[in-house]
């Protein structure tokens, strides 16, 4: 098996694996990174989204070879309880979920949006999250949370 090297949440990571196997499978399997969730396996729901560089991508549909030498950020790398990302704080403040299975992928899509557009309008948030599915109907809360996080980041 060839060795593939990439940065995962800021840490140099080497894995020996089939380069055509999926990033999600590696993250959730050998690397025990369970934030990205399996939803469909076909880049149709966004539950497994991670940042590849500064773009949100579906890790289920991203082969390992495509991340070689790149920076991968999962929800675990976005922040934690001690050092939360403003998006995570805002999702708590807005109680912006019901079941929460989709939320790690949505936080990642939102983080990618705020990195390229720190002051998005409501419609721009919705457009950025349009490939992420939520089945519980928490969409409007999530949009409010992203807007709240944008404000918090602007006033820092």
């Amino acid at each position, binding site marked *: 098996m060839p060795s593939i090297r990439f940065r995962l949440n800021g840490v140099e990571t080497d894995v020996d694996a089939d380069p055509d196997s999926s990033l999600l499978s590696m993250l959730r*399997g050998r690397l025990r990174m*369970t934030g990205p969730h399996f939803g469909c*396996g076909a880049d149709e729901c966004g539950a497994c989204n991670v940042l590849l560089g500064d773009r949100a991508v579906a890790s289920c549909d991203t082969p390992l070879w495509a991340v070689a030498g790149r920076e991968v950020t999962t*929800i675990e790398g976005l922040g934690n309880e001690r050092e939360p990302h403003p998006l995570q704080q805002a999702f*708590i403040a807005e109680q912006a979920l*019901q079941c929460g299975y989709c939320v790690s992928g949505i936080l990642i899509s939102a983080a990618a949006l705020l990195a390229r557009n720190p002051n998005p309008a409501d419609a721009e948030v919705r457009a950025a999250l349009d490939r992420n599915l939520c089945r*519980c*109907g928490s*969409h409007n809360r999530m949009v409010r949370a992203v807007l709240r996080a944008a404000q918090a980041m602007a006033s820092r």
Partner: protein
Amino acid sequence: MTGAAASPPRQLPVSLAANPMLSSWVRFSAEGQVMVSPGKVEIGQGIVTALAQIAADELDVDIGRVQMIRASTAASPNEGVTSGSLSVQQSGRAIRQVCAEVRQIFLELASQRLGVDANALDIQDGTMTGPGNISTSYWELAADVSLERRATAGAVPKLATQRRLAGNSVPRLDIPDKVFARPRFIHDCAFAGMLHGRVLRSGVCAAKLVAMQEDGARAVAGLVAIVRDGSFAGVVSETEAGAEAALQALRRGAAWSAGETLPDEARLAGWLKAQPVESTVIDTRTTPRTAAASRTMRRQYTRPYLAHASIAPSCAIAQWAGDRVRVWTHSQGVYLLRADLALVLGLPVENITVEHVEGAGCYGHNAADDVALDAVLLAKAAAGRPVRVQWSRQDEMSQAPFGAAMAIDLEADLDAEGEIVDWRHSIWSNGHAARPGRAAAPALLAGTELANPFARTISTNPPQANGGGGDRNTIPLYDFPCWTIESHRLKTMPIRTSALRTLGAQGNVFAIECFLDEVAAARGEDPVDFRLRHLTDPRAQDVIRAAARRANWKPEPQPGRGHGIGFARYKNTGAYCAVVAEIEGAEDISVRRLTIAVDVGEAINPDGVINQIEGGAIQATSWVLKERVRFDRQRITSNSWSAYPILRFSEVPEVQVEILARPDIEPVGAGEAAHGPVTAAIANAVFDALGVRVCDLPITRDSLIAAMEASA
């Protein structure tokens, strides 16, 4: 602080009567924690937080001390299934009553220990204090109090005004874990030595596995076992990727028989009405008429099969030890699942432990129970190691039970003034319930696939006393003088159906509320006025007035924009909900705004209620505008998100929710209150905008064109 309160309840709440031991609900640790053990489970609705609030309030402890225990057949009270918007009603009342009694028991002991009257003691965060700085606490006294005693119904819960937490929007306890991605879902559990399983299923409905080549799967690295029992087949592997690869190999080498013929999806109403049925008169009313019928209005309404389409594929973990098995599941009913597992395995229930672990949002009887049996069967081949099984997206969308399709006929006899003098409501539908643990045969998918198979459970309907199934919300709340309500339940079931959020209520409320709109329009009467005039329950009138007021009913018509109203009291016994929908469009309808008023009695956690109503409203909008299970004559074809689209962020309407304050009325659930009224309000708004009555869901470009052609 025991104070004056309402008169004691004459009987125990239903869940407490079934599980009367106080210790099965509440325990204290010496370390200052309260363990509360409900029989209901978290399915994304926030119930655990609401129940913790109730316990903390009644015991006078900080909510941070309350540890909510996940339901398990090893120790939890048996509260049946977490469904029907009953968790606050059933678990909440039981916990409130238990905690009131436990508080009283501890106060009595504290009074003895401290030598003061119990009435002189105050409890703050679990510490009881009295005159002269004397004090003790639940934790100090816990070792000397046995809660191994039966609830007595003698204790009196606090008055609404004495509760500190109920009525407040306490943040949900589970949300930090979820935004920080701490493993909480069953999908994220990893046990030592855990293996991975996958089950082979044919896309052809009810096909039998005729032959299976195993060589390909055997060649896959990490394979532990290939399991086959009749048409049930699966693989167990050291890794998840290995299990996937072995399953693919197995699929290539599998030969299947022809399956069962499915109905023609283009002629579904005709098919429903042509099947053998069990017919039931649900209700009749007769009143001496004041006016003779001068004409009759008729409409047929339909609803398609709907998929749960949970965002996560179902998952379970099972582990055998000799002839005992332990199962981790996101089932809605751990005891009910255990009963069915016992039937399939031929084991006494004592040999089976079923524990709840959270899954993704659950909207009814999905594949959670099915995958639990899959895991149990595959784990038999794992030599005592735990086996985690996860379904594919395709199987989740095609093998799990669906919400049943419905054909609904409404007729109204009108007098010369256009007033309703007689009302007839008939439904044709498969049953809306085939849950596990309720019949002599198991209701689990793999049970029908074994070499010695169990017959597939044909769905039935719960009785009206429990809210009904296909007939849910058929009995009008309106004061029509006469009516006849009939339900025709299909006795054939080529497409598997069971409980999906609201059961038949979404279809029935859609039909009733659209038909009423039409009757009102025929009289030239405002639909809000018409409803108010035919309702006598002030709580019903209040939600309609509140929604209408907030939506500035009725806004001036604008081209391509319309407003509509819908109302129901869920199950006729639950939450009252009125909705004004504002829609826009001509060919493709978009819902711009839903203005909702709701009365759930006491709102334990108002933001939780709003979250549930909002979520229900958005999900219902998705059902109305997008959703329809698709199939050909052999297989379910809508087995991906592209074939079964749901509402996306850019399509979601603004949702405003107003809760009517009723702190002194027993609380009821909110999760299913909005679906029916939202559906009807959207359809009525479409009429307002376009002048066309769409009677077949979903409301798409095709159904609009068909409705326009039919009315032309």
